[in-house]
């Protein structure tokens, strides 16, 4: 986790809010550093994490996680982390007989299916077991990422329904958090992705948007992060806040600074 990002979000692993949906999106840049941040953040907060990783392999997240101070292998072994490795298990749908539907069963269906088997996998992974287990604080669902589900043939409404059910179970029933990543297609006209992104934006409590700089690539400033808080639960008189920072990704950390205040130009 990146301490500077925790400061910007005004949160620490000990006193993070519960029952929230956080939307990560990226436009013209790679926002996966945010996924690594939240993965290590919630593992350090002693939460039970279900990670639906459809983009990269387990070892990729493990290597980055070690740089950020968490060991995914150990977390998986002691039951804190439930990892669905999409790249590997997608092949199992075709080659291994399954009694109950595989989480990625939609890959076999000719018509646009739904994500009910995936939701049931998540619910099973995060349901609170009896009191004998080491007490995890609250459950967290992490998805990297949702745009690839659209590329695999699902409709935007099916993905929105899946997140709706995850919100109902994880956020409302189990008082946990959900963090999802969606890519913003930007200039490319992609109606389904726009419906997915806007639909999730309306449901989210916190939106983190990583954008590339409008002027192009830069060695010292890798992009710009927009933070938008929606639906403040305490007082509705406080309008939704929005902050913008620029960032530079280093080997083990990300440094944030106000726009135009990069150490390279000062």
């Amino acid at each position: 986790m990146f301490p500077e990002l925790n400061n910007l979000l005004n949160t620490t692993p000990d006193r993070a809010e519960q029952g929230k949906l956080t939307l990560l999106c990226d436009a013209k840049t790679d926002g996966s550093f945010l996924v690594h941040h939240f993965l290590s953040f919630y593992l350090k907060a002693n939460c039970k994490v279900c990670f639906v990783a459809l983009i990269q392999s387990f070892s990729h997240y493990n290597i980055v996680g070690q740089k950020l101070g968490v060991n995914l292998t150990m977390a998986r072994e002691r039951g804190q982390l439930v990892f669905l490795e999409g790249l590997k298990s997608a092949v199992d749908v075709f080659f291994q007989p399954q009694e109950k539907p595989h989480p990625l069963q939609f890959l076999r269906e000719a018509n646009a299916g739904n994500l009910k088997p995936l939701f049931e996998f998540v619910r099973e992974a995060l349901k609170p077991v009896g009191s004998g287990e080491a007490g995890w604080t609250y459950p967290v669902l992490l998805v990297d990422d949702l745009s690839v589900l659209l590329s695999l043939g699902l409709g935007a409404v099916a993905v929105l329904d899946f997140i709706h059910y995850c919100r109902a179970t994880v956020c409302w029933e189990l008082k946990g958090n959900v963090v999802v990543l969606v890519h913003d297609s930007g200039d490319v006209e992609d109606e389904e992705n726009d419906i997915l992104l806007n639909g999730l934006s309306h449901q989210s409590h916190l939106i983190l948007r990583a954008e590339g700089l409008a002027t192009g690539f830069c060695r010292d400033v890798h992009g710009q992060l927009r933070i938008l808080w929606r639906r403040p639960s305490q007082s509705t008189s406080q309008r939704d806040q929005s902050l913008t920072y620029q960032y530079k990704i280093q080997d083990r950390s990300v440094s944030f600074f106000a726009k135009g205040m990069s150490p390279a130009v000062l």
Partner: protein
Amino acid sequence: MLDSLLALGGLVLLRDSVEWEGRSLLKALVKKSALCGEQVHILGCEVSEEEFREGFDSDINNRLVYHDFFRDPLNWSKTGEALPGGPLGALRAMCNRTDLGPVTIALDSFSWLLLHLPCTTLCQTLHTVSHQDSCPPGDGSPVGKVHVLGLLHEELHGPGPMGALSSLAQTEVTLGGTMGQASARILCRRPRQRPTDQTQWFSILPDFSLDLQEGPSIESQPHSDPHIPPVDPTAHLTFNLHLSKKEREARDNLTLPFQFSSEKQEALLRPRPSQATSHIFYEPDAYDDLDQEDPDDDLDI
């Protein structure tokens, strides 16, 4: 105008966006209806019942009837708890009620219904519900007044469904704002009257009561200070930007070197006889080897 929206009757559409959310205004209008003594039904598809009831005090909560379509809208849990017929079934059931009191139905949200149901079905049901009081059924029994309002997320739908719902609505409220201040643009179409369009600035207090405001204060708007005069950049220069009269005359009298005037033409045509032949003056260097002999002497031409 904003606080008397529901009194006009018919369908009220609250159009919101990601930046300016509309659920707090929906809750404020629901609270107003409840305080007027109406029965309020909420068809909740997007947020949980606890989250919707949060912020209301108990006497308002007692008047709200929440139909929960958030927990299991598609019946994935197969427990049979899901309300039969879905949200539209519940909506139609409210039409067939027998009591006469005015009722307010709040839909959270139209967008959820549009994404899951065909637009035509939704529009037909809304038309039936909202026009019920103006067309009493054939047996002459009186029907109570029905107010329907709901949230519509603007970015999620194309112009077709948005236009269809707009044409059904008597009142359309579009949320926006500037500089942290929320505004509502209210477009009101009453039968046999000209449509009205006005903008109202407002804010929602923590207890979901509506606070109408004048608009963003003038001092907070950035504007140029009238006490600082505009600076003239041509003053105090180190070089001359203008010509005096004498300088202008001298400039006009100057002939340009490559301009072919008639004097030049005549000078070229008539060679001047007094022109002396040109001379070359040469100073020999110290190590220069000067030989007076003609090098071509031994040529036998």
